[in-house]
């Protein structure tokens, strides 16, 4: 959502943003109660289809965005598989003991990470921040004070990025050399954060004054440039998710191929 290169708009962009978020929150919570590994596998495939076909981004970028979540998958899978407990022993070497249970629990945990990553990215890549806040103001009565603070803050982010870039050059010119290790990290943190924070606070203060000078009142009634409401896209989206979940349940019950069905937490 904070990324600034959403060039193609797909029908997922037309779904009411705050409704979309609400559905995703339900999914997030609901998934925690599911322990069937087949369901997770099928659900991941479903999300993969949505992610690559319906977000309107080039495949290259989509692969880059999702790559960190694969690292999360691998790390949680490995740590769970190698050290988790279980009865059916497959392999043992010192501290490492892989059992059937721990192996599949690792896969389950890793998939959960990936699924959350997919959901988050699908939301972020198909939602414009301004539209999101307009819809939360209109559908869920978010206070304009909060909504506009967020929108103004998002505007500041690219400026902060630019400043970090200049700061890096400036420190080089001033002959600042950071020592290696933790003390270097601390020093770096100090040299970067103080000026950036000072600039940002000052700028935020100025923007706040400018907003009030433009007769902004965070609690007053207002009209909206973008009218946000519900449309048939919301129904489609709802059906897509419900249908997807039904199919996953169906597949989980009829097409199992792994020796383990449920992972016990």
């Amino acid at each position, binding site marked *: 959502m904070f990324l600034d290169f959403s060039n193609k708009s797909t029908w997922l962009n037309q779904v009411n943003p705050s409704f979309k978020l609400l559905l995703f929150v339900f999914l997030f919570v609901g998934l925690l109660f599911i322990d069937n590994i087949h369901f997770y596998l099928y659900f991941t495939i479903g999300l993969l289809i949505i992610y690559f076909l319906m977000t309107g981004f080039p495949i290259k970028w989509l692969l880059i965005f999702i790559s960190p979540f694969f690292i999360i998958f691998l790390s949680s899978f490995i740590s769970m598989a190698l050290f988790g407990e279980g009865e059916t022993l497959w392999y043992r070497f010192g501290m490492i003991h892989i059992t059937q249970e721990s192996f599949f629990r690792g896969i389950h945990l890793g998939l959960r990470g990936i699924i959350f990553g997919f959901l988050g990215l699908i939301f972020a890549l198909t939602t414009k921040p301004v539209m999101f806040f307009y819809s939360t103001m209109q559908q869920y009565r978010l206070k304009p004070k909060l909504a506009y603070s967020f*929108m103004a803050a998002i505007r500041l982010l*690219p*400026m902060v990025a630019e*400043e970090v870039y200049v700061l890096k050059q400036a420190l080089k*010119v001033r002959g600042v050399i950071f020592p290696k290790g933790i003390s270097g990290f601390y020093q770096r943190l100090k040299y970067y954060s103080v000026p950036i924070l000072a600039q940002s606070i000052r700028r935020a203060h100025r923007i706040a004054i400018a907003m*009030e000078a*433009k007769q902004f009142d965070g609690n*007053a009634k*207002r009209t909206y440039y973008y009218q946000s409401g519900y449309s048939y896209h919301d129904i489609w989206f709802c059906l897509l998710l419900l249908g997807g979940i039904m199919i996953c349940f169906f597949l989980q019950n009829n097409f199992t191929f792994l020796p383990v069905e449920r992972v016990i937490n």
Partner: protein
Amino acid sequence: MKKQGDIMEQIAISMEGLKVKFPNEKSFLFMDLSLTVKQGEKVLLVGPSGGGKSTLLKILAGIIPNSVEIPMKYTNSILPERYGYVFQDPDSQFCMPYADEEIAFVLENLQIPFQKMAELIPYYLDTVGLHLSDIHTKINQLSGGMKQRLAIASVLALQPDVLFLDEPTAMLDEEGTDQVWDSVMKIASDKTVIIVEHKIEQVYDFVDRIIMINTAGEIIADGEPYKMIEEHLDLFRKYGIWYPGVWKGLNKPSFQNQLSFNPAITITQLTGYKIKKEIIHIDTAHVTKGDWIAITGANGSGKSTLLQSLAKLIKTKGTVHYSFTQDIPFYRKVGFVFQNPELQFVTNTVYDELAFSLLNIPLSEQEKRQRISDHLAIFQLDHVKNIHPFQLSVGQMKRLSIAAITIMEPEILLLDEPTFGQDAANTFRMLDYFVSLHQKGTTILMVTHDQQISEHFATAEWTMDAGKLLTISTKRTCRVEGKQNVLGL
């Protein structure tokens, strides 16, 4: 608003017996200040930096104390019911990412139905002369001048009686400055306009009245523009205001010493990249020892990129050969001063900032202390040496950022728009110092958009266009001789 007398005599703003004191300061910023502005009048407020012009403007608009709390008192006042306020910094007065959304933001505040917005937004953009091919254009893709035009358009949507302009062109180049005043003149005929500005050349013909405020926050002169220049020229000079013809009164530095012909920098086939994109390409160019080169050109022509390439701050191809030996760190020989001083500071006090630069230079403690106190004196920072750099005024910050580099006595000094947004007094003080460095043999390369600086000081001017070095014109082959006092005070 009170109605009194005929239309011409109606009062737009009146303030009587204003007293203002900042919480932690001993003296009053304003003590019994009174001011009346008639409806439709165009007023220019001028005065030295830090004299409280901007604060006064905010008080007259009601921003102080409504949005910013500062203790104040007055006996009587008439303030405008509806006003528009344009701020100095084009980047910190918008809260929305797109141009149309920003104007819509104002219309929403006034609870104008969304159906009407679609016609009002293009109307206001058109009124200020901001012709965008698509009104849904990103604000950060606009130039500084266009941003300020957008700011004017968005305050026009407030349908203001009074327009306050708080140094709207201080951070703009010449082209942007022209754009802004163009827009103001288009829309302001029936409005009361109060302007704070220290570059007054463009507004001089537009305003009906100039009010001058001194450092003590008193009105010391008030009258029609031509009379003010006639009668109070000395005050304009003293307070460092850019009045029309300010350059004519200067003592031009005299150039006598023949330049040596030893090259300081030799550039061959230099290409500078930003985010893997080629920004500049220069076939060949030479900088002679003792040169003072002004790099000029339009916005985005690659002036700053050229400087950054020479300072090895960005990725480059080709060669830049420096004549000095490479035995000591590069950045001690080549000093670079950024446009935004705030990002250059690394310590907690002004004194430490200078000491930091000398950290690795082989001098005795005694010599270091001496050099620091010399620099504090030259840059008039002695009285603030123990405070945090961020607490300095804009002019002081700029001076400190230059001092922190020149204290290392670099052989080559690269300056990115050093006089940008400074008042005349600060500018001339800085130029004075550069002249003295130049006399001592420092080679200077300076990005500037001020043609006057190039004319008066440079030994050569490089003009950039679309990433290429368009022309190299030699101004003189001599170096400044003798002690100079540019400001002539």
